[in-house]
């Protein structure tokens, strides 16, 4: 996985009412961006950039750290906390502790962290009662056990703890980039998104006003827009982002090798649900390292005691891809149940998950 340099600038993390925080955030972003064009403003006070390219350019990791520290001192007048690790989650932790985690050691670093770094007090308390004190101990729980005991959100945290996800769901402020763009006087992204043949009509204005009304009623995350990006499976190719946040609206026109063929499931679960497959003798059906099934799936079991009979299945279609830098092995399976429903399941880390419903 790629090494990231996280830059934590404490004074910029709390927004002042006079708007100075956002102006300074933009000034620092521009200065860092000049140093490394892949700099991201993750949220107020936190920036991140991939270490490899500037390191090669400036002659070593230490040279990058020195240059970044100087830039922050020049622009904001305070010394930042810097940290290096693989993945945004670990990189931010490293920054708070001012550590450079060497390449390949991020797994061990993450596993040694106390549970409260996940930011969920209830989860920490429950796990401590179970005698689990570190992310590593939590990560070793079976996903199905986590699903039984906690909610969907905890499943995502569990995937972060296992290193399957590189960042927490709420680690990024998706609105920040748009606010910076607006401050810079660039046109809002919504205009770009909604323009029909490059023109913006009264209908677009009406839709925008309606979206604003719903947001006022239900909160800033309530309205979302969708776009497609590259990827092989429907759950990877779909992005639903809060309306008004920056989105690379790239239509996925080019063929993507090994893409799961149409038709795609009309429901794609944002939080996959764990399930089990059993054969006729009620033995679990697993996926071998070679991508073969250990038996014929005859029943599907959900974690709620719900059992359904399978009348037909197709697959598995294995996907081996690089996800960050770790090889990620997955396989999809289409199932049709006696009730007439068709499902898309995926095997990952020797578990089955429901990812789509052909509704």
């Amino acid at each position, binding site marked *: 996985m790629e090494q990231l340099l996280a830059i934590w600038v404490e004074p910029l993390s709390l927004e002042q009412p006079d708007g100075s925080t956002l102006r300074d955030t933009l000034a620092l972003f521009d200065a860092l961006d000049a140093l490394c064009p892949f700099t991201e403003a993750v949220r107020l006070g936190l920036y991140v950039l991939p270490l490899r390219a500037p390191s090669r350019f400036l002659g070593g990791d230490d040279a990058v750290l020195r240059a970044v520290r100087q830039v922050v001192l020049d622009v904001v007048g305070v010394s930042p906390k810097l940290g290096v690790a693989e993945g945004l989650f670990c990189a931010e932790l490293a920054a708070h502790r001012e550590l450079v985690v060497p390449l390949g050691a991020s797994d061990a670093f993450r596993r040694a962290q106390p549970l409260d770094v996940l930011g969920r007090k209830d989860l920490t308390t429950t796990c401590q009662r179970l005698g689990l004190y570190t992310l590593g101990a939590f990560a070793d729980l079976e996903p199905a056990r986590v699903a039984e005991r906690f909610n969907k959100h905890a499943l995502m945290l569990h995937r972060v703890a296992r290193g399957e996800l590189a960042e927490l769901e709420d680690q990024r402020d998706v609105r920040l980039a748009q606010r910076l763009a607006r401050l810079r006087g660039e046109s809002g992204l919504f205009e770009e*998104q*909604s323009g*029909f043949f490059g023109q913006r009509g009264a*209908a*677009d204005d*009406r*839709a*925008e*006003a*309606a*979206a604003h*009304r*719903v947001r006022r*009623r*239900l909160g800033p995350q*309530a*309205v*979302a*827009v*969708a*776009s*497609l990006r590259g990827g092989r499976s*429907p759950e990877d*190719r*779909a*992005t*639903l982002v809060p*309306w008004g946040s920056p989105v690379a*609206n790239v239509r996925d026109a080019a063929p993507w090798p090994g893409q799961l*063929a*149409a*038709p*795609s*499931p*009309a*429901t*794609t*679960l*944002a939080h996959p649900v764990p399930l089990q497959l059993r054969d006729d003798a009620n033995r679990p059906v697993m996926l071998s390292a070679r991508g073969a099934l250990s038996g014929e799936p005859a029943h599907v079991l959900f974690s709620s005691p719900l059992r359904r009979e399978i009348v*037909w299945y*197709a*697959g598995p279609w294995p996907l081996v891809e690089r996800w960050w830098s770790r090889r990620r092995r997955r396989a999809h399976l*289409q199932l*049709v*149940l006696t*009730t*007439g*429903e*068709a499902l898309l399941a995926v095997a990952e880390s020797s578990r089955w998950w429901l990812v*789509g*419903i*052909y*509704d």
Partner: protein
Amino acid sequence: MTTIGYSYEHMFAFSPPRPSLSPELLARLRPVSLAKSRTLPLDEPWRALVPGGGLRRGSTVAVEAPVGWGGLSLAISLVAEASAQGHWVAVVGVDDPGIVAIAELGVDLRRVLFVPRPRGAWAEASADLLDGVDLVLVRPSSRTGFGAARRLMDRVRERGTVLIALSEPRTAWPLPVDLSFRVTRAEWVASTRLDARYLTVLVSGRGEAVRGVERVVVVPNRRGRAEAT
């Protein structure tokens, strides 16, 4: 200024009764707006099944299907053509929309607003959106009350929007609608993968609408689109 007010009143008070138009002339009169702009276009398989070949503005459409029987795909296929031709669509209460499938059905994602989890306020969110978009597809999170349904349908008529309400048979839309699509049978055709789903759909409506035609429509086909059989 007061004299003007007075003169208006005066005018109305003493205006002669309007001359009645002859029946021949009445028959030749048309509303000012063209029929074309009063309906929203439908995708090919539905065009032949619906009077006028499109969704009349101000009408409410119900889509009813048991869980997993393609109700969502069907409802999306109803908005696909209008979306492709530049109309705005809002999708309310569909928790985890399959974006790829929606695009495959022909919807232009650049003009779709999603309100995935309206947290019990689906009716209010839909009402807000009815003012701003051309079609609202809503999946109520609970059984729809008469009052909420009535208010939404009145709003739809007033704004000239189209409301598509997606439900299961046990939580069906409580009021008669202008057009309804009921899935009575769903059958997958598969080779080495899922190829196509044949939906038997009962299309019915009121007024000039058809009196219950049952047709088989493919939603989705091998390319993810809706298709006539």
